[in-house]
């Protein structure tokens, strides 16, 4: 034990894994978004099903039901999002002519076909968000089982929508060491689980690569409003501050991404929705924004940084 604790296998320049190399944000090759807009606005809306019988281990994703089985209270609170809350979000986005990326659990496709129709009708991007919020991806998952979970999720979404599904969000942002490779092998082009950047970057994924998309965790509505118990006014201030900083940085360093991670069971409640309306109205008043889906941002990034990608993914 003592030997182990004083042995440092990875103690050298660089990181202690091989998914990507260290890269400082101010040293990145500048990105130029369409129309010369400094900030890409990426709105993600989670469409989730929280099962009553979700296991507590290896971990519960944020929002997982935790009041003891059968937790009808939390169940119906989360379910409110798919029944009521998301339609409030749609009204706000429709009013500003904005589209979102919907991160959809396969279980939600089967349960709420009408909701999926409304998402597709709006030309939102459909991204895969795993089977349901009780099936997290984690280190002890056998690769063969995880592959089946990814395939079932992808097939459920593509069959229901007829759309190609290129983006992946793991439930609760959990991954195994195989997740990225399995996603790449199944045709996914980006994953939105890692929370370590404000810009897209490329990760190695087995024999290929996959784009890591910068989905905010700290500013996610469920983190700020539910986990950290902040007010919606505080949420509003913090998102607008992030926008201000990213817009300012873009003048010197090139295009930035402002992501909003929205949960219909959080921001879709009546006491909160008006804040989303104010945030987006305020952001859209400036002409600094390129509103885009996740795949549009990933494609634009990859189109501009071929050389950089090759460098980053050298073994």
């Amino acid at each position, binding site marked *: 034990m003592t030997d182990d604790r004083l042995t440092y296998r990875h103690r050298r320049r660089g990181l202690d894994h091989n998914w990507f190399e260290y890269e400082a944000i101010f040293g990145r090759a500048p990105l130029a978004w369409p129309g010369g807009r400094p900030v890409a606005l990426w709105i993600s809306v989670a469409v989730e099903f929280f099962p*009553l019988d979700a*296991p507590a281990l290896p971990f519960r994703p944020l929002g997982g039901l935790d009041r003891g089985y059968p937790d009808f*209270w*939390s169940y*119906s609170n989360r379910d409110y999002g798919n029944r009521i809350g998301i339609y409030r979000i749609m009204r706000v986005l429709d009013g500003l002519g904005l589209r979102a990326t919907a991160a959809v659990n396969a279980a939600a496709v089967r349960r709420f076909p009408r909701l999926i129709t409304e998402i597709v009708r709006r030309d939102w991007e459909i991204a895969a968000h795993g089977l349901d919020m009780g099936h997290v991806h984690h280190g002890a*998952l056998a690769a063969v089982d995880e592959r089946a979970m990814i395939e079932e999720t992808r097939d459920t979404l593509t069959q229901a929508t007829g759309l190609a599904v290129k983006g992946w969000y793991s439930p609760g942002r959990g991954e195994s060491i195989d997740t990225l490779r399995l996603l790449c092998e199944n045709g996914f082009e980006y994953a939105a689980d890692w929370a370590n950047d404000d810009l897209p970057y490329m990760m190695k994924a087995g024999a290929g690569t996959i784009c890591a998309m910068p989905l905010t965790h700290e500013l996610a509505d469920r983190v700020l409003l539910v986990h950290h118990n902040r007010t919606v006014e505080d949420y509003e201030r913090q998102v607008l501050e992030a926008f201000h900083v990213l817009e300012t940085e873009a003048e010197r360093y090139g295009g930035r991404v402002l992501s909003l991670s929205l949960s219909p069971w959080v921001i879709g409640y*009546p006491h909160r929705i008006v804040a989303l309306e104010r945030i987006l109205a305020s952001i859209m008043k400036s002409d600094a924004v390129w509103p885009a889906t996740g795949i549009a941002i990933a494609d634009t990034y990859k189109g501009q940084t071929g050389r950089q990608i090759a460098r980053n993914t050298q073994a």
Partner: protein
Amino acid sequence: LRRGEPGERAVSMLTDAGRYDYLPLIDRPKIEWPGGASLAFWAAPNIEFYELDPPDGQGRPLWPRPYPDILNYSLRDYGNRAGVWRMMEALERFNVRASVSLNAAMCDHIPDIVQECVRLGWELFSHGIYNTRLISGLSEDEVRTVIGDSIATIRRHSGQDVAGFLAPAISATETFLDLLPELGIRYTVDMMPDDQPVPLKVRSGRLIAVPYSTEINDIRVMGMRGYSPDEWAAMVKACFDQLYREGKDNGTVMCMPLHPFVVGHPHRIAALHDVLDHVTSRDGVWLATAREIADWYYERHYEDALRFCDVVPGGAR
């Protein structure tokens, strides 16, 4: 049950609640409240008795500290000695009648409070017997006995026929909703998927979910999550404004759950006055009890809603 093991789900557990169909906010029948009101508002004080020494083995500890947890016991008891009277004064001042989520043992322990509720013209509905007696793990017969006792006790002390139910301390069994219509209960507030009443699927009879709230509940917001009274009041008023606006197109329900041991403190009671002033100064608000909302809904809108429900439910039973 094998809860807690990675990837393991016990086959006997429900995945879906399976109690209602998917009826999205868009495309649903229009609800019209009495007098053309946009919003039906109801206040739900939880008037509760917590035992100092409740039985063990209920699946979770009832008190954070070992017996006698006099600090936490007295924090609850504050509600009955002080908070409830302040809360009653506030509601009476703004002519808001409440529907009380009542632990029936209050009738035995502190009948003065129950009699005052009756004098104020408030509705009493069942919140079980004690807040320290969960229904979790009870058999159907035991659940029937507990709820039947609560209904009989409330009727004996108040003359009221109990129409509504909220499980004590938000405990549940898979089937307790099926038993409510058998006992004469017509609405529950244990399911909160909507801002309008929702028809529920039960074994026999009819049952609806009248909207309640975890989101603006004083105990959750101020008691557990530590928001200030001003922040709570801002939330409740924002909730009201949104549902009031939406209610012009399709009538909405807003419930304001209260706990005398939370909102009834001197440092918080002004927030309640603030909220009540906001709610009662608008036209087009129906200040109702939960029973009145349920009665109106059954009479005018229940059948309509059934016609609108998807054939494929959000989790079929």
